[in-house]
């Protein structure tokens, strides 16, 4: 079944076509979301939201772009929305903790890691460090970098997903790498891992 038939089936509410679509693209969507939110459970929940949106709004798909481009676009937008919501929640939580007092998160993390072997702790710390560095990137740089590194998309397709020019994608990825390198260098100098 090709893309057009698949979309036509979903537009008519055909569950079988929808199942095929999910089976074909679920890994791609979860991977894209994971590259942005860095949490597998959140990434799977987001991927489900993406597919639900596809099923609900399939009639709006005109077929100008590839189906994967549409999926990438929804996945990146939803992931960014989740990050923005989490940031807002954390902001209000920090206010609440300042005025009311809350649990010490540092001790919570160290409790969780207490039973892990040393090697895993280093891997986890390294992974946390990279995620923190990626999270500090501006949104557009983060999207371009994630699509390029996690999904190995060519610059042309990233330009289509982000609806920007090829030159802008090149510039975004170049700046993302520079920023990431700066942050990792800072971490290397401070020996944070």
């Amino acid at each position, binding site marked *: 079944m090709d893309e057009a038939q698949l979309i036509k089936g979903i537009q008519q509410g055909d569950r079988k076509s929808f199942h095929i679509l*999910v089976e074909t693209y679920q890994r791609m969507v*979860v991977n894209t979301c*994971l590259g942005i939110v860095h949490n*597998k459970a959140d990434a799977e929940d987001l991927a489900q939201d993406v597919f639900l949106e596809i099923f609900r709004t399939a009639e709006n798909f005109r077929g100008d772009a590839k189906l994967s481009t549409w999926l990438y676009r929804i996945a990146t937008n939803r992931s960014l929305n989740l990050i923005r919501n989490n940031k807002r929640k954390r902001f209000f939580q920090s206010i609440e903790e300042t005025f009311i007092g809350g649990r010490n998160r540092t001790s919570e993390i160290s409790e969780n890691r207490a039973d892990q072997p040393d090697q895993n702790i280093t891997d986890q710390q*390294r*992974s946390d460090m990279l995620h923190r560095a990626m999270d500090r990137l501006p949104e557009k740089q983060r999207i371009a970098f994630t699509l390029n590194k996690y999904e190995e998309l060519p610059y042309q397709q990233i330009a289509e997903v982000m609806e920007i020019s090829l030159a802008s994608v090149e510039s975004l990825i170049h700046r993302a*790498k520079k920023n990431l*390198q700066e942050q990792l260098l800072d971490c*290397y100098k401070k020996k944070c891992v």
Partner: protein
Amino acid sequence: MKTKCIHNDLIFYLDNELSVEKKIAVEKHLEECADCRGFLAFLKEGIQIIDREKKPEVSPFFYTRLSARLDEKSETQAQSQWVRLAQPAFFSFVLLAGIYGGLKLGSNASSPKINQQVTSSVQMLNDFAAEPIESFLLDGL
């Protein structure tokens, strides 16, 4: 003399994005500079995390959960559609009944028959005319 550190080029060196001349210069520098070699190794380990993380195994129940959410959504949608139709119909009926009741009461209140009845009942209540207070007080003596 030690050459200037080339930290800024290392991520592009790892991604093989440097020109041939620059790549040779970086490799030459790396042979001499332990600090840059250390940072290159650190950077490499950091970037390799992406390779380990990407393409995760998706939960085998992904579609089952999705399908359940879809059913739930269509059920609530159907329910909300029914509520969306029934609610205004019910409120319109209550409103119309209220207006009709109000009109009915209003028309009854303005009819002369009712006015008469009200007046007579008021007259019946006014029994001072029939039994003045003086005679009532005198009865007690």
